[in-house]
Structures are given as structure tokens and as C-alpha cells.
């Protein structure tokens, strides 16, 4: 597609429940990035993929968070046993290259943990 598509737009989960977010990058883009934005503050980098391979996961919380980008499927970000502090907008971005290039963002998924 021509735009990065994120689903769902909004997600409400009770504490302890699982949350799964999806991102379809722009066709032909090799890189996918996930960012977390809490309370409209700065974007925190979580993880990046080069095609289906994890490229950099230095921002991912060690526990509870996992992500995948499988061939012919949307990428996904999963949070096991959600906590209140996971409430945030999660943005996905894709780009054709890794450096010196424009990153195209999705509209984000707003996760609310109650």
C-alpha cells in the first residue's frame, strides 16, 4: 500500500490482559520501526526490523513485549500482561533504507490499559 496502516486505532485492555497491535508497512520498504509515545511526550524507540529480521531491539522492555515481522503478514507488537504504564500511542514507521531517508508513519494505535 501507499501508506503505513496500523490496526486497531484504539485498544482498551484490562490490566494483565494481552494486547496485540498490527502494522502493514509500505510495499517495498525494508525497514519497520516501532515507537511508543506516552502522554504526548517524545517518541521512545522500541524495535526495528530489516524485512523479517530484528535489526535493533535495544528499546524493547525485556519482559512482556515482543514483536514480529513475518513474510506476507502485517508486523505485530504484542504486550503480554499489560500494565497501566503501557498506556500510550504506539506508532509504526517504515522506510526503504536505514539511514538518511524519510520514515513514513502510521496513524498510531492508542492503547489504554484500565
Amino acid at each position, binding site marked *: 500500500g501507499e501508506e503505513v496502516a496500523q490496526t486497531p486505532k484504539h485498544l482498551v485492555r484490562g490490566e494483565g490482559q494481552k494486547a496485540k497491535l498490527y502494522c502493514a508497512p509500505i510495499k517495498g520498504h525494508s525497514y519497520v520501526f516501532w515507537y511508543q509515545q506516552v502522554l504526548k511526550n517524545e517518541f521512545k524507540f522500541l524495535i526495528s526490523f530489516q524485512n523479517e529480521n530484528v535489526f535493533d531491539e535495544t528499546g524493547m522492555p525485556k519482559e512482556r513485549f515482543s514483536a514480529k515481522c513475518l513474510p506476507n503478514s502485517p508486523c505485530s507488537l504484542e504486550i503480554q500482561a499489560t500494565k497501566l504504564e503501557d498506556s500510550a500511542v504506539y506508532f509504526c514507521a517504515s522506510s526503504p533504507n536505514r539511514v538518511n531517508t524519510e*520514515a513514513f*508513519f502510521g496513524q498510531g494505535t492508542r492503547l489504554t490499559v484500565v
Partner: protein
Amino acid sequence: AQRVTQPEKLLSVFKGAPVELKCNYSYSGSPELFWYVQYSRQRLQLLLRHISRESIKGFTADLNKGETSFHLKKPFAQEEDSAMYYCALGGGSQGNLIFGKGTKLSVKP
């Protein structure tokens, strides 16, 4: 440590006035600087990148390595410029962007 600082949370100007959104960065290597904009109810989109040295929608930004700044400027603000503006730093081998906290620009009629 790599860091981007946008000192103003909110900047309010009148239509036709000049506007400058400040951005300072901390980076030991060769930085790539970007300005992203998010209009109301729209996705984040690229406005400018320093390497292309272009002017988009009347906005310009010059990378000043001595002052480690990449301020965004426009001589005459328009109401449609009202939006959230994020300065972002790239250039690392990882490819991800480091964002500032953003500045909300409000242009009053």
C-alpha cells in the same frame, strides 16, 4: 548520549508574524536532522531534512554544527501552520530516530 531538545512546549504567534521553533541536539557523530509535523488528526509526516536543504511550505532549517542546533523558521506564519512540530535526530547505524518532545505551534488570526 544522543538527545534532542525542543525548549518550547507551546509557541503562539499571530498570522503574518515570523516564527522560529528551536531545536538543539547532542550527538557525537555526523548527525542527520529532520523536522516532522503532525497536523490535527493526521499522521506524523516529514517536513524537512537538513541534507536536502529545501524549503517546504515556506519553512527552512539550517544545521549549525557549532551551536548543535537545527531551528525551524518561517518568515510569515499562516493559520494552517498550526500543528505539532517534532525535531528528530538520525544518523546512527541503527537507523531509528530520536525525537524531541515537540512544540505546539498555534497561529492566531
